[in-house]
Structure formats: structure tokens, C-alpha cells
């Protein structure tokens, strides 16, 4: 999945499932959209579903430092690359 495709999918999920309004790529997820640790866990499940493989516990723990949509996209690209490798 290209970064553009990823971005489109993630923004759709954030708008449809997490009720984000006008999300920007560099918005602070918590401060601007009320996204909390519970949401992060839920989003990881959605990402697993989207990618079609399970994300390991260690990889999931790394997701806790995510702050922006750009961070989410970087994170997915990293685990996609690791999974291919």
C-alpha cells in the first residue's frame, strides 16, 4: 500500500470510526481530537484488519509514542517493511 493509499484509509477510519473533524496530518491527536490510549488500542486493531496481518506486542508498544497522523503513517510503513522483510 502506498503512502497516499494509507493516508486515505487512515483518514477515513479516523473520520468514520473516531469522529475526527477535518483532520490535519500534523494535528496533535490528543489535544486536537481527544484521541486517547483506548483509541490507540482500537486503532491498532483497525490497522491490523487493514493490513491483513497481526502486529506483534513489541511493535504495538512502539505505537504509544504516536502523536500525529504523519506518525501513524510512518509507523505503518515501518511495520509493513518489517513484515515484508
Amino acid at each position, binding site marked *: 500500500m502506498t503512502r497516499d493509499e494509507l493516508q486515505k484509509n487512515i483518514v477515513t477510519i479516523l473520520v468514520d470510526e*473516531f*469522529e475526527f473533524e477535518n483532520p490535519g496530518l500534523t494535528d496533535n491527536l490528543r489535544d486536537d481530537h*481527544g484521541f486517547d490510549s*483506548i*483509541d490507540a*488500542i*482500537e486503532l491498532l*486493531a483497525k490497522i*491490523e484488519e487493514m493490513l491483513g496481518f*497481526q502486529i506483534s506486542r513489541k511493535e504495538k508498544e512502539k505505537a504509544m509514542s504516536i502523536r500525529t497522523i504523519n506518525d501513524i503513517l510512518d509507523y505503518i510503513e515501518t511495520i509493513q517493511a518489517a513484515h515484508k522483510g
Partner: protein
Amino acid sequence: MKRRVVITACSAITPIGYGKNDIIESLRQGRSGVKPLRDDGLLTERIHSKVFGTVDYDIDYGFARKDTKTMGPVAYYACQVAKDVLADSGLDQDFITSGRLGVSFSSTHGSPTVQRNIYKTFFSKDKAEFSSIGAVDYLKSMVHTTAVNITRMFGITGRVVASSTACTTSSQSIGFGYEMVKFGMQDAMICGGADEYDTTTVAVFDNLLACSVDYNDTPQCTPRPFDVNRDGLVVGEGGAAVLLEEYEHAKARGATILGEVIGFSCNNNGGDLILPNLDGITTTLRLALDDAEIKAEDVDFISAHATATKMGDVIESQAIDAVYGNGPWVAGLKSYMGHTMGTCGAIELILSLYMMEQGFLAPTLNLETVDERCAMLRHVREVTETETRIAAIQNFAFGGVNTCLLIADGRP
């Protein structure tokens, strides 16, 4: 330190209506909220009892996703009635978040709907379904889910009490909240209980031969507390909350005082976990009078637990007779909506408050021929216009837990 504890707001979602006007109308018109049991695709076909005290109207919750993500159906009821009491109370936001307002609220067992979805995965061989257990499922289904969803939604930082004791859940919530305020640990408490639509509870009572089965085709004719033809309880759903507040605090801010909690008792039978116990219940009723420092003859009305089981009503009648004789009026308000489980004490207290304010007492519905073993009481048999200054709300639970709350009307 002993302080007076007044009721400055209340709200109830019940099978006979939501809000004061609806509920009073149902009580005055003798309108039942018992309906046919809905098909849940799991247990309904196998349960003998086909009736349920049902909330079958739409509620405009208007909650934001940031709040609903941790809420099962039971928390919707809880947060809605909590929202109502906070709005009606006029408490300012600084006080709500000050740590001097606490929450005493619970349900029989969290959200059974969410629990059922979790259990489903136990029987699935599909790995994907196992991982479908959501991160928030525990938050939705834990026993204190109602209390902490209320604190989260309104930013309440005071104490949290979540007594989950089956049918005495919300009477304990109110009683423990009363004690928090009375003894100065908090200045106000949101207290109550909620339980959602759930056939597993019906199945449990059905298997214990305690559910009504003879009126499946005429749901409005059951339950029948104290009636010779009663055949058991009817499970129901709902949510109810009261705001308890220290009297001087309420007076200083000019709050409307709806009533006052003047006494509370709670004890245990110390033995059998199911059978009603005359000694235990009688002691509870006396302890409440002692706590309120009033005499039996001061009580005008008793809201009996009166589930319409064969023995429960008889034992409760004997206890009332032993403590009160036939002085106070007695009604079984579950006759209107069935047994709303963890909510029943709070709902029955609010219904009693409404009737005290309006100057009438609603009769026990479906009480056509009084069982002679219950006949020594002064039953309310028709809508009775009368002044009630003090009322007792009695509730008893599996586990041998008994409670009695004594409330006075809102007059100074």
C-alpha cells in the same frame, strides 16, 4: 459530625416512563410497563417466563463518541439520569470537579450485553474473532462501569462507591452516599443504579422457579405482589439517580429541596443466600428507624420490596407487621414495571418522592385478592389522595442483604 442530607434532584428511566410527568401519569392511570420478552436469539426460547419490564421508548442521549466509547447499554441509562440530575440541580462546574462531589452508583453485573459478546469468542475457533474482544470491552462490562462513566463524562473527582449487591445495589448506593454526606466525607453524591435488558437474569430466576409464567399472554397482569394468584417476579430494566446534598450547602445556594434522607440501615441474614429471612428483615426495618431517630408510627408509607414471589411477600408482610402493625400504607411498586434489579431501590425511592410531592399514593397493581398471609397490612388498593411526610423504601437481595431507606418530604 452528623449532617442533614437532602435530595436536590432526581431522574428515572423506567418501564412506565422517563421523567416525572410520564411516571406520575402511569402511576395514576395504573399503566403497566411489563411487555412480552424480546427475542435475543439465545435464551428467550428456552425461558418459561415470557414477560419483561421493558423500556420500549426512544431516548435522545446526545452523548459524544469520546464518552460512548467506554459505555455499554447500562452506562447509557446511568449517564443519562446522572446528566439529568446535574442539570436539574444547578450545581456549578467548579463544585462538580472540586472533589467534594462523589458518585455512588452501580448495576447488578456491568453490561451483560458486552459480556455476552466476549463469551461468544470463547467458543469460536476463529482467531480473528478472538482478537475482536475490544480494548474497551472491560470498561463497558466491569461492575463499576456505570459509576466511572459518570465521573468521566462530567469530570467528577470525588469518591466512587460501586456496591453491586443484586437487588439492593441502588438502595445501598443511596444509603452509602447518604452516609458519605452525613459524616462529612463528601458534600454531595450522585447515587443510583441501572440495569439493561438482559435475558440471562431472567433465566437465572426462571431456573429457580421464581419467575412469573402464568401471565405470558397478559403481561400487564403480572407481577402481582401480595395477591393470592401471584406466581413470581418479572425482571425489568431501567436507570435512576438522585443527588444527595448536605442541607446547609443546598440551602446556601438556594437549591430546591425535594426531600430528605433521614435514615438508612443495611444488614445481612448471616446464612442462606436466597431464602428471605424474617429476623434479618425485621432487624433491618428497626435499624433504619433507630438511625432516623423516629418511631414506627411516624412512618406514613412503605414501599415494600414485594417482588411477588410466593414466600418473599409473606415474610416481608410479617416483618412489616412486627415493626409497624397496620399503621402505614403499603404498596409494592414493582407491580408496575417488574423487578428492575440493581435499579429498583432508586426507582422506588423516586416514585415515593413523586407521590409525596403530589399528595397521593398509587395502589399495588394487580392486587385483586390479598393473600390472607399478607392481609394484616394496610394495602393501598386504589389511588389514594393522602399526605405522606415520611416513607420507608425496603429492598432485599440474593446474598441475604437487606436495606431500608427512610425519607421525609421536602418541607422545611
